[in-house]
């Protein structure tokens, strides 16, 4: 039996972001860098509240955009990986409250 709980992700609390016309614009204040997400990316971004599992997010994505659940899961996981590598998202419950983006250059 695989009893490992799925990873829950949350948006990094140090980020400033806003959805404009369905597309998320994100600023990392420490690095003064802007990130953009397209429509599906923004849909996923909205769900990164530390409560939805990747599988739940993929299911909602699949229903909203009428793509197969396999494609939705693959796309969700690859997006999560990318967001995590940029420290735009953090694992929920781990390092909570810590500023994840380097503050000084």
């Amino acid at each position, binding site marked *: 039996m695989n009893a490992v709980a799925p990873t829950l992700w949350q948006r990094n*609390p*140090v980020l*400033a*972001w*806003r959805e*404009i016309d369905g597309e998320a614009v994100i*600023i990392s*204040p420490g690095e003064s860098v802007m990130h953009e997400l397209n429509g599906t990316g923004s849909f996923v971004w909205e769900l990164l509240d530390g409560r939805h599992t990747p599988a739940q997010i993929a299911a909602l994505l699949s229903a909203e955009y009428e793509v197969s659940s396999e494609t939705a899961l693959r796309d969700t996981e690859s997006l999560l990986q990318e967001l995590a590598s940029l420290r735009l998202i953090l694992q929920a419950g781990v390092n909570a409250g810590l500023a994840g983006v380097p503050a000084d250059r």
Partner: protein
Amino acid sequence: MRDSLAAHATLGRELGWSLDLSIGSTRFQILFPDEGLHRLAAERYRAFEAAEGPAFPIRLLDAREAASASADFSFKWQGATLRCRREDAVFSGVRNEYALDSLLRVLLSWTLLPQKGFLLHAATIVRGGRAFVFTGPSGAGKSTLASLAPEGTVLTDEISLLRQESAEWSAFGTPFWGEFHADGKSVHAKVAGIFQLLQAPHNRVLPMSPADAVRMLLPNVLFFSKDTEASRRLLDLLARLAQSVPCYRFEFRRDASLWEALPA
């Protein structure tokens, strides 16, 4: 430390080494430690001089004095340091008018935000009483465009100040100039539109969606804070601007024909 600062400021004022400025309806009183820099600043900012009155104090410290460590916002530029608190700011290590100009821009970008304003890398030209704001990084053509504008219509060729007053957005002149030395006018006008400058062999104006406009504006905003809340405020401000002011991609030719392409 505060007593010594206050005494220093009083001395500067008594000797007349203070300068009252109004830039985009924001009032500053700069207190200088010596006559030399005061004279240079009075010359550079003469179009923005205001009568004495309630103003945000900026104290320039000379080399012997150390700035207080506490600040809500601080910034360093080539050996000069800005420390800003809610009620005042201290500049230290300022040895010439360029350092003063830089710190003043940074300070203004900080004090404007709560007043729903910001500085943008943009030239502003007034046509028919309305402000046409042309934005882009260095080399995009701001100075070229300003040099092609009819005499007396350039508010700035380098850094524009945009501010929301009630529901309307206004562009203000600033004393921060680039290559084209306009007279840096202390006047303002309602914003007709914001145009992203792109040099081309033709003239063409293409409307932009609010989301594209925010993405286009962000890299051109003068913004130095690393604070999350300030960044959120800026995003909110830009989103409101993009929803109420038309924004365009402006492909333009480097000659006077560009004016004919602009929307009325």
